[in-house]
Every structure is written in structure tokens, then in C-alpha cells.
């Protein structure tokens, strides 16, 4: 610690505020609880006791106002795409999107002849992490979430950005 050594009492940790904020935000990304298709089963399984998403601080919230992460789990139809967009807009900043599975990423098995399937949720909302698989196993989803945590940790919310 050099100069700061023994300057404070016990139980005081010194770090940059940006880093502490990044650490706090990345270890409690509450996700928005909604599923669109079969991927939702894997998402539920990830949250259940065997894989237990609460280990990494993730907890399902049933309202977009309280959620930080939206996991788009499943096939997004055109009818649903408008609703997904609306729900994303209702979430408070900072917000993140995970595209889970082939369908949400590119249309999946419906990419050519599915007339009513949105060919990738990134046509409607910005996506941070893509998780491949059909459907992805809970381990794959957890890896995607850890990648998202890494991304959140590198953010510097207090540092002024160059315009």
C-alpha cells in the first residue's frame, strides 16, 4: 500500500470508487424473469438448486423496473418482438441483454422459412452477450453471465468519458 500503509484504522479498505462500484454492480445483476420458449426451461434450471444462479448474485425479478439484465430465452416472434422492445425500454439504466440460444441470436431453426420469427433479437434491442446452443446447457448460460460480469467490471461509471 506504500504511502497509505497504517494511515487508517482496522477494517477499512482503500480502493478506487469506480472499481468498488463495478464490483458491486457486477456481483448483483438481477435478471428479468421471463421466458419465451424452451430455452426458458434451461434458464429456470440454472436458477434452481443444482446450478443456483444466486451463487453469483443473480436473482429473478418479475418487473422490468427492478431488473438489470434481460435474458432473452427463446424464439422471438414478430408479435413478441414489439413487446420485448417495450420491456427493454421500461428497464432502468444501466441495462444489459443476453441473447440465449440460437433462436434469439439468429432465428435458429426458423432462420429461413419461419415467416413470423424475428431473425435475431439484436434487430430490436442491443445485445451484450450471445450464448450459443439449442438450448444452451445451464453451464453455458452461466459462462455467458460470467462474461457479462467481466464486462460490467471493466466499466467506469464515474470516469468522465471523452466526448
Amino acid at each position, binding site marked *: 500500500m506504500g504511502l497509505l500503509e497504517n494511515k487508517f484504522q482496522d477494517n477499512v479498505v482503500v480502493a478506487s470508487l469506480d472499481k468498488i462500484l463495478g464490483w458491486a454492480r457486477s456481483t448483483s445483476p438481477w435478471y428479468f424473469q421471463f421466458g419465451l420458449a424452451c430455452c426458458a426451461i434451461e434458464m429456470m434450471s440454472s436458477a434452481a438448486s443444482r446450478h443456483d444462479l444466486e451463487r453469483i448474485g443473480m436473482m429473478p425479478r418479475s418487473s422490468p423496473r427492478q431488473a438489470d439484465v434481460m435474458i432473452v430465452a427463446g424464439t422471438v416472434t414478430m408479435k413478441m418482438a414489439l413487446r420485448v422492445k417495450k420491456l427493454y425500454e421500461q428497464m432502468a439504466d444501466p441495462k444489459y441483454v443476453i441473447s440465449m440460444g440460437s433462436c434469439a441470436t439468429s432465428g435458429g431453426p426458423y432462420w*429461413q422459412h419461419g*415467416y*413470423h420469427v*424475428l*431473425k435475431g433479437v439484436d434487430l430490436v434491442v442491443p445485445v451484450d452477450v450471445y450464448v450459443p446452443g439449442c438450448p444452451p446447457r445451464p453451464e453455458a448460460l452461466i459462462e455467458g453471465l460470467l462474461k457479462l460480469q467481466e464486462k460490467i467490471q471493466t466499466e467506469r461509471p464515474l470516469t468522465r468519458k471523452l466526448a
Partner: protein
Amino acid sequence: MTPEQIKERISDQFKNSVITNESLGEHQVEINGEDWLNIATFMKNDPKLSFDQLECITGIDTGEEGPLQTHYNFHSMEHRHKIEVVISHDRKDPKVSSIEQVWRIGDWFERETYDMFGIEYTGHRDLRRILCPDDWEGWPLRKDYEGQESFHGIVVPKIKEEEGWE
């Protein structure tokens, strides 16, 4: 009753209503759509037929040359017999009277067939799309259907079989 006897029972009651169609299976009967509501009511109320259950309504597009068809699957709990009624529609103006008020389950069945094939069930009290969005264009399960280019500003990328994304 066998399907043959059911056909006879209907054609005895309604002259010229049963159309002979060799391409159908023996459990199917093609019926002229003009008097369909009366025939359906008769099929339900006649004690010998007593079709108290409408199991399914299916739309079929038989291709450019052929007509659009509606298939109705009926079952009688009382007599334990079944029949499939086929009605053909003109492709340009597909219309048939609704049986929604005879069998209540026909409500959603007819809405679904309307949604996918654009067959109009006249007399249906709430005929609107059931699966697609209300402002969807076209009838998706028709053979000449072409997908929309955009939907509410969302562009639908065209995908070619060999080249991939366009």
C-alpha cells in the same frame, strides 16, 4: 353407424348436399357449403347421428389449381362414430357459414383457420386473428404466401438458400 350410413342419412335429409369425390378416404364426406349451417345443426340434433363433439377444424390449401378446403372432424359420444366433413371453397372468395353457435368450440377453431388461410366464416360473432398480430398481412399457410418485408419498422432480412443472408 358406418361412414356410408352417415352419408346416406345426410343425403336423405338434404338433397344434392353430398358431393361424390373419389379422392377422399372412406371416412370423409364432401358436402356442398351452401346449406352447411342447416346440415350442421341437423348433424348435431338428429338422434341417429348425434354428433355432440367437434374435435377439430383444419384448413387445407390444395395448390394453385385446387380449391381451399375446410375439414371438420366430428365425433359422437353417444353412438361412438366419427366422420370428417370436407367443404371446398372458391380460392378468390373463400366463404362458408360459421358453425360457431352450434358447437361453441368452433369459435377458436374457425378463428385459427381464418388466421392461417383467410377463409371467411360468415355469421361468426368475433372473427379476428387469433395467433398472428391483428395487423399482419396475408394468410401464412396458403401456398402462394410471401412473407412481409418489414413489420412495424423491423426489417425482415431475406435469406437465400445458397448465399445465406442478403
